[in-house]
């Protein structure tokens, strides 16, 4: 494992332009998510909001945080972290969704 190879890869210097475009995308998505809040989406409210937030975060992570251009190792690390987090939520909800008292409150 040489340390030298990885250092050369990251110096793909991106220009200003791409970042401004990403920013425009983020602001647009923000305005979209705000206007969607005005509609009654019932059960889909949370999912839609989280979906848009996830898209925004992915853009921040890939471009602003440069992950798109970084070593695969970082992408694997991020995936592991997110998976563990989701697993924890899912397992906890196996308790919450099946506990009758919670739902009747």
């Amino acid at each position, binding site marked *: 494992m040489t340390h030298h190879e990885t250092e050369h890869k990251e110096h793909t210097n991106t220009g200003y332009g791409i970042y401004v475009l990403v920013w425009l995308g983020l602001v647009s998505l923000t305005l979209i998510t705000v206007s969607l809040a005005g509609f009654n989406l019932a059960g889909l409210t949370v999912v839609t909001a989280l979906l848009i937030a996830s898209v925004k975060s992915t853009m921040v992570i890939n471009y602003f945080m440069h992950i798109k251009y970084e070593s695969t190792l970082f992408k694997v690390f991020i995936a592991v972290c997110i998976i*563990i987090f989701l697993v924890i939520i899912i397992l906890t909800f196996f*308790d*919450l969704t099946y506990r009758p008292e919670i739902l009747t409150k």
Partner: protein
Amino acid sequence: MEAVLNNENFYQYKGKHSGILGWLLTTDHKRIGLMYLAAMITFFVVAMFIGFFMRLELLTPGETLMKPEVYNALFTLHGVIMIFLFIVPGLPAVFGNFFLPIMIGAKDVSFPRLNLLSWYLYMAGAILAVLSLFTGGGLPDTGWTFYVPYSIRSTANVSTALFAAFVLGFSSILTGLNFIVTIHRLRCKGMTWFKMPLFAWGLYSTAWIQILATPVVGITLLLVIFERFFGIGVFDPALGGDPILFQHLFWIYSHPAVYIMILPAMGLVSEIIPTFAKKNIFGYGPIAMSSLAIAFVGYLVWGHHMFTSGISDTSRAIFSLLTFIVAIPSGIKVFNWVATLYKGSIDLRTPLIFVMGFIIVFSIGGLTGLVLGSLNTDIHVTDTYFVVAHFHYVMFGGMGTLFFGGLHYWFPKMFGKMFNEKIANFSVVLFLIGFNVLYFPMFIMGYLGMPRRYYDYLPEFKIYHQISTVGSWILVTAILIMIINLIIALKKGKKADNDPWGGTTLEWKIPSPPPLENFEVEPEVTKGPYERV
């Protein structure tokens, strides 16, 4: 940057600071490891004596030595010190710090100053924990698990203790961070991932748990502090909070924490066995992968601490199944260790005796874990002495035995002196005897219904408590002999050479004690860590 002069070792190196500052402001991983060691042995002995007095109280039913409130405070303090100040940080902080860089052929860890910060956070946490004894409402009596709502209501000094645990968590996180980057970046020439010693694999898997699990308990403890001061309501049933959610968040860390405790220990076993069997380890790949597997699956089982708390039946069944699955990778390790010993040329020295004891004691602990993981049997033994016995067998018999085993294994390398092996062997055997006399009766009385954390008990349990207390006397004696033997060796021990045990990993190729930057020239590795010939 000073070079190694005149074969001086790292103790003799005179850096920017001298005297005590040369230790308190050091960034040398070896000195930091030793500072942890000194602190940890102290805390261990304190907590050990707390346990000694707890057992003394339980020698007879009713009040023997102390009032019930004192007993509650004592078992809380015993747990907090042992878990947060000894077992969780233990092997990574002492032996990981001292030996990880050496074993991978590096001069130090990736972030030496961060390493020193970890030690200061550790000491700060310890001081805060002690502070909770003397300030405000006195020592917390909530148990080390700080369950709500009592931890919200108790007038004792809960917030200080919680904050101490939070600070200690930070220390753990930074150590884990340091080790992950160190292992990725500083392995020497030729040392691919699969030529790395298994202790390093253990530390790597552990480090991921330290990073991903600790923050969860961090926020949980912080929220209890907020609850106490601001009444935010998330855990307080009076405000609509769900106490079971506290338990979920608490155990989401605290279960993986037990793997933080045991994975480095298992890594150490994989070091000691090849050295004393004079044979290459059997199944290097599976052992390495099983460490990662345990680390991952360990996140999925926390609910087994909550089987009787009121969680849904569906989740109980799921957690029970997952708990059985996590036992499999540990089994893989035990089989590989035994296979390594088979047809080996066994040199039964002190470290190997520790390991033999560990395998037996940890297996007992592990098997009883199946009783606890099995939903229907857990209902009967949960919150009894059965659980107390189980976790002492795996945590103390597991990590504790190996902490002292590792101390003996690496003593000559760290201090350049050999200890008296006859006394050491006697102390290990006495330790194992005392350990079993102390803890085995607990399985029986737990099964018969003796609840845990109880200050008083029914007459039918008296005989078990008495045998157990006598066991504690034997155990404490053994540990004191062990420690004193090592302290004497520091002063009077015979000089140790580079490789007193006949080990094959990189630490045995350098002088005892090591020079400041470990290696004169960066090593180059061409074969597996345990290959001979």
